[in-house]
């Protein structure tokens, strides 16, 4: 416990340092990429617990994110302006911001239970289709709500709160908040993976019947995995809402769900390191190809290169970049000469 708290504090300081460094020296454009990557990491690492660790193929992550984004956006708007309105953006109060994220996570987690429950009955492709359906239902219901702005969604979501010592620079404190969540989810997921619960989830993935025979309560564990993934997807949605300042139901189409699955498969299903790397690659590749596109005046080139990378990847390394392995200090020690074996 003390160690976890220590690590979280270290993460807090590291994120603050990162935010300060970027604000001071790096162009906003790159900070923007980093923020998008951070949100993608939270989604991917969360989904990894469902898809990678527990082996429950979910295609509904965008649905959880959508709920989180709308809940966080509405809470923040309500508490900051009192009503939906137009005008310049304002800063959300620290309490408002944290409360909105928490509620976003909780709302998504409740939906995780709802979606996790049928997961007890469905397996494999069937579950994938059911979760996909859930995400689409969420999106269509949100689109139909005129009080939530209908297809154009909610606007004027306040900015993330500032911290002592950070000025109102272009990127604000988004890096700090987003990477604090990234750090937290990576830490928790790493812990989870090595805990009794994590082992139980892996056992379910490998052989559900055998796991149940050994006393693992598969049904309960599967719902737990969904709730865990959904909670963080909700928070990712909340961060996204505060970062983009407006969210629309169409930001959360099935394409986004699939994108998160691609991140996992690319990085290595079941590996946290893989999920992180997959999130970085899937977010960054289309952006890094942008200058090339502009140089050659071929728009849409990035999508071709991106698809090609995926195909090559699946041919030559179907298990993903990391497979189920993780990157850790131990690995470095093993590689370095004279290190402990």
């Amino acid at each position, binding site marked *: 416990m003390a160690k976890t708290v220590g690590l979280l504090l270290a993460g807090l300081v590291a994120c603050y340092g990162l935010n300060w460094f970027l604000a001071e020296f790096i162009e906003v454009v790159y900070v923007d990429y*980093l923020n998008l990557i951070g949100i993608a990491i939270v989604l991917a690492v969360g989904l990894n617990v469902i898809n990678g660790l527990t082996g429950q193929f979910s295609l509904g992550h965008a649905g959880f994110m959508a709920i989180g984004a709308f809940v966080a956006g509405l809470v923040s708007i309500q508490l900051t302006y009192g009503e939906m309105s137009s005008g310049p953006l304002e800063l959300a109060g620290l309490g408002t911001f944290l409360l909105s994220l928490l509620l976003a996570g909780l709302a998504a987690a409740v939906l995780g239970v709802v979606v996790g429950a049928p997961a007890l009955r469905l397996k494999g492709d069937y579950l994938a289709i059911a979760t996909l359906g859930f995400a689409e239902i969420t999106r269509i219901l949100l689109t139909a709500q005129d009080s939530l702005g209908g297809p154009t969604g909610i606007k004027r979501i306040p900015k993330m709160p500032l911290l002592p010592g950070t000025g109102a620079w272009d990127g604000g404190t988004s890096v700090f908040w987003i990477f604090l969540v990234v750090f937290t989810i990576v830490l928790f997921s790493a812990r989870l993976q090595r805990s009794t619960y994590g082992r139980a989830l892996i056992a379910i993935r490998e052989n559900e019947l055998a796991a149940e025979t050994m006393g693992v309560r598969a049904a309960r564990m599967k719902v737990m995995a969904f709730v865990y993934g959904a909670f963080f997807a909700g928070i990712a949605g909340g961060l996204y809402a505060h970062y983009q300042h407006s969210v629309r139901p169409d930001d959360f189409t099935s394409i986004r769900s699939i994108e998160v699955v691609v991140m996992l498969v690319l990085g290595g299903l079941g590996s946290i390191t893989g999920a992180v790397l997959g999130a970085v690659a899937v977010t960054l590749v289309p952006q890094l190809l942008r200058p090339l596109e502009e140089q050659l005046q071929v728009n849409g080139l990035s999508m071709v290169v991106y698809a090609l990378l995926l195909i090559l990847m699946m041919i030559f390394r179907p298990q993903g970049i990391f497979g189920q392995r993780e990157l850790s200090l131990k690995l470095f020690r093993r590689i370095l000469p004279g290190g402990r074996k």
Partner: protein
Amino acid sequence: MRYALTLLIALTALFSASLTGCKDKGNDAGGGGADEIRVGVFLSLSGANADFGKTTKNGIDLAVEEINEAGGINGKKLVIIAKDTRSKPEEAQTVAKQLASQDKVAVAIGSVESGQSIKAAPVFQEAGIPMVSPSSTNPDVTKQGDRIFRVCYLDDFQGQACAAFAYKDLGFRKAALIYAQDDDYSKGLAQYFREAFKGMGGSIVEEAPFQGDVSEFKDQVSKIAAAGPDVIFAPVYYAKIGLIARDFRKQGVTVPLVGGDGWESPQLIQLAGETLEGSYFGYHYDPDDQDAKVQGYLKAYSAKFGSDPNSLSALGYDAVYAVKLAIELGGGSSADQITEGLRKIKDFKGVTGTFSIDENRNAKKSITMLKIGGSNLSKVKVIKPEDLK
């Protein structure tokens, strides 16, 4: 547990190392050097709506070429920095950040899709850069900040104008509606038409919304046919109107259809010419207008791109000239001066009509009702904003 931390450090190191773009302080947004004015453009140049972006870009390029050939604005040349939003609203925000902080543009033009404009607006607003949307008609767009402008009419005006046209000019009293429920453009237009038509004393006898990308409208059509309307308002895009009209004619419904600018396309006649015979739609300008400005634009466009222009290219073209006028009115090419200039635009004569920028930063302009007859379009009436008051 340590790898959580390792990962963060490794990631940061990797990322920082790959960065070449360090912050260059001091050079704040001034919109380029002494002899150029940097204009950011963000449009869907690839992806599902690439057609929107490309035709708008053509109009913008044409206007910029003309201005630069004539010596620029106060001796300064316009430089276009075009970014592709890949048909995604989210990417519009990313490229807006690039235009604002990296390219340091003085003014931004974009986008066609209201969703993209709404996502990009806060970025430019925060950066103090004026943004001019050529053709986002959703009322919410310009509400995003006091530096967000547009040069097209709004969905509410469009819906009201169509209602007034159907009621007063065509003399119809019973209208039916068919529209896409999950599309803000279609739904918005239907809503404004409904309110205005009822307000004038007409009645909406039937409503048949549809959802999603469908190509069969039998159910909606028979529902409307049973109600026996005089006129059908169908605010949909051109790809759909052909199919809708076909289904109506198949079931023997011959009353005219009325629609908005979404109908417009070089393929409209080809897709639905016969079935839409005798129908009307509201449009940004009259292609047969003998006005020198319109004809000059049409000729120059065809000569440069080898194809017929559409309303999007005309609005892109007008957006550039509105920016030019704003620079002249504002007395300079800084972001603040252009913003001031845009606010002062009065009776600007563009290809898409004469307009002024009102206090809500929207263009107050007229709508041209066109009639489809055989293989051509003819102007029936021009409805001005003051006509509706």
